[in-house]
């Protein structure tokens, strides 16, 4: 697995652990009340698990496993890296913005998530092709 995929997949694993923990706090509170403020964690929970865990894991694994060019090259790596960084900024923007009630951060976070999806798609598009054994 290339280093970039290692870090992306590990970041996804962290989002899974923290996202489940936040969900567990909310669920615990739902059953055995701790503090009503825990409900404010909900947007961060949703964002970390849907975008930070699932989408980010898909990006990391896709970067690792999609067909390569000329044997080893994975195309525009910078674009993929920018997509992953932008996704994480977006998750934090939407999640923390939602927690704190900052609508502007939520909006910017959503825009960042959208950009991240577009950039990653642009990176992966040319790699989605039949595998060939020739040099192309």
């Amino acid at each position, binding site marked *: 697995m290339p280093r970039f995929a290692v870090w992306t*997949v*590990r970041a996804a694993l962290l989002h899974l652990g923290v996202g*489940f923990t936040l969900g567990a706090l909310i*669920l*615990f509170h739902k*059953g055995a009340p701790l503090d009503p403020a825990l409900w404010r964690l909900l947007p961060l929970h949703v964002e970390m698990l849907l975008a930070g865990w699932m989408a980010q*894991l898909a990006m990391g694994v896709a970067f690792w496993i999609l067909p390569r060019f000329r044997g080893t090259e994975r195309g525009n790596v910078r674009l993929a890296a920018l997509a992953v960084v932008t996704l994480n900024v977006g998750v934090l923007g939407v999640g923390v913005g939602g927690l704190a009630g900052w609508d502007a951060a939520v909006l910017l976070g959503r825009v960042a998530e959208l950009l991240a999806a577009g950039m990653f798609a642009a990176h992966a598009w040319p790699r989605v092709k039949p595998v060939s054994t020739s040099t192309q």
Partner: protein
Amino acid sequence: MHLLTVGWLTQLIIGVAYWMFPKYSKARPRGSERLGWATYALLNLGLALRAAGEPLMAAQPGANAGWLLAASAVLQMLAAWAFVANTWARVKSR
């Protein structure tokens, strides 16, 4: 909703990752098998408790159904960290 996202999507990912991610070592390709089974048991027990606890809680909010949800929360959280711990070192460059 969570039966779908946790019970199907996340569990499928966990299963396929356990199967296909790079080997931990020649002797123990999948890391700790016990931790793998622990993840599976904790996640599914946790989900089952929630599936039972949520409707009970809606029908008659009270301490008993509440504790089902609280226990479910703890089990699922432990499942996630068990999976992360077992998978972390398998996510590596060769």
